[in-house]
């Protein structure tokens, strides 16, 4: 993230409904292949002018300080990376029957970590982000890696992965549980890898497809 010079006489109104997006550009083809990691990352970002909150950091106080905060501060711009987590079979959620909840049901045991490939992606995200912002002319560029643990990304997925083999997967290709075909799991649980893009549209498409399949099978008296 950093500061953008100029445009002091420009401002905006309303709630920004979106941001900028930089799609994945590494490991797309032969020419973009990385030796450091497989798969890749994209960026989301945006800009705005700082508000009165910026006053907390200013080494200043008093009349001019106060009156200055009535006007918007400098433009600031950021991009932040979203990397893929590979489909590690050992990243899993199991039932802990030794610790029960208040209804006597087993609780979740979550065993999950980011590994070397994800860390290498994170490193590249930061290097490229700083490089792009500096070349764009952004000033006082600060690179960062918050080293978030799995779960911070709010689109976590997996745990009932889709696959051909009931021994290594929970769901079949139409989101049905292998062992119980009348049970459909149509949220993000079917994913194996996290990909690096927002998954909601994929979930909706998978759900529509699974629902279509369910209706069709029901009409054939197969369910």
């Amino acid at each position, binding site marked *: 993230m950093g500061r953008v010079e100029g445009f002091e006489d*420009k401002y905006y*109104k309303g709630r920004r409904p979106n941001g900028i997006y930089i799609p994945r550009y590494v490991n797309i083809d032969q020419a973009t292949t990385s030796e450091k990691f497989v798969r890749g990352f994209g960026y989301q970002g945006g800009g705005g002018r700082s*508000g*009165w909150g910026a006053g907390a950091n200013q080494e200043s106080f008093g009349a001019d300080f106060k009156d200055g905060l009535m006007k*918007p*501060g400098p433009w600031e711009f950021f991009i932040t990376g979203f990397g893929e987590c590979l489909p590690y079979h050992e990243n899993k959620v199991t039932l802990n029957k030794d610790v029960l909840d208040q209804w006597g049901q087993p609780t979740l045991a979550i065993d999950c970590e980011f590994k070397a490939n994800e860390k290498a992606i994170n490193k590249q995200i930061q290097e490229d982000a700083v490089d792009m912002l500096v070349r764009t002319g952004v000033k006082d560029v600060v690179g960062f890696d918050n080293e978030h643990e799995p779960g911070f990304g709010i689109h976590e997925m997996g745990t009932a992965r889709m696959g051909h083999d009931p021994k290594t997967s929970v769901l079949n290709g139409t989101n049905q549980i292998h062992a119980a075909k009348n049970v459909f799991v149509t949220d993000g649980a079917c994913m194996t890898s996290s990909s690096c893009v927002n998954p909601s549209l994929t979930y909706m498409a998978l759900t529509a497809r699974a629902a279509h399949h369910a209706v069709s099978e029901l009409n054939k008296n197969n369910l």
Partner: protein
Amino acid sequence: MITGSSAIIPGLLSLLQSCQQQERLSWQPQFLSQDQVGFVATLVDTILPKTETPGGLEVKVDIFIDLVFSKMYGEEAQKMVVEEIEALDIRCRGNYGASFSGISAEDRVTFLTELEGASPKYNGQVWGTAVGTQEPVGFYRTLKSLLLWGYFSSEEIGKNVLSYDPIPGDYLGCIPLSDVGNTWSL
């Protein structure tokens, strides 16, 4: 600092409103002692003095700060507040011969300039999360941040001084600043 949409929980909103309903003359601090109120009020008046726009004391930022310490801080944090205010006042007595509320305007400026220079800063934020590892900013900058919050989110400043348009409708990404005037309050 780039911040995402700030979420103020309903309890905080009622806290913001309740300090404005408080009549100053009948005000009894909920948490701070009279000496500590003197420190906070003097700090409010030094950082946010009256200019063409109201000063911090006019919109009751001192009452707000007392409410925050009283209602939002746990026991440990409250203990720390008292210790920190007393430590600052002791430094003031040592350097300038009186507590913060009793020293000259020049000495107050010298004292706060020193505190500003010595206090760590907040990291930038992306979507409301500090980037990188945030080192503690210390009591002075935390308190200054609370003063700004109380001042700019007061009804008088937030509604009548800053540009106020809570339901803005359409989004216009690039318009003359002169069409808006002051910074958006939210």
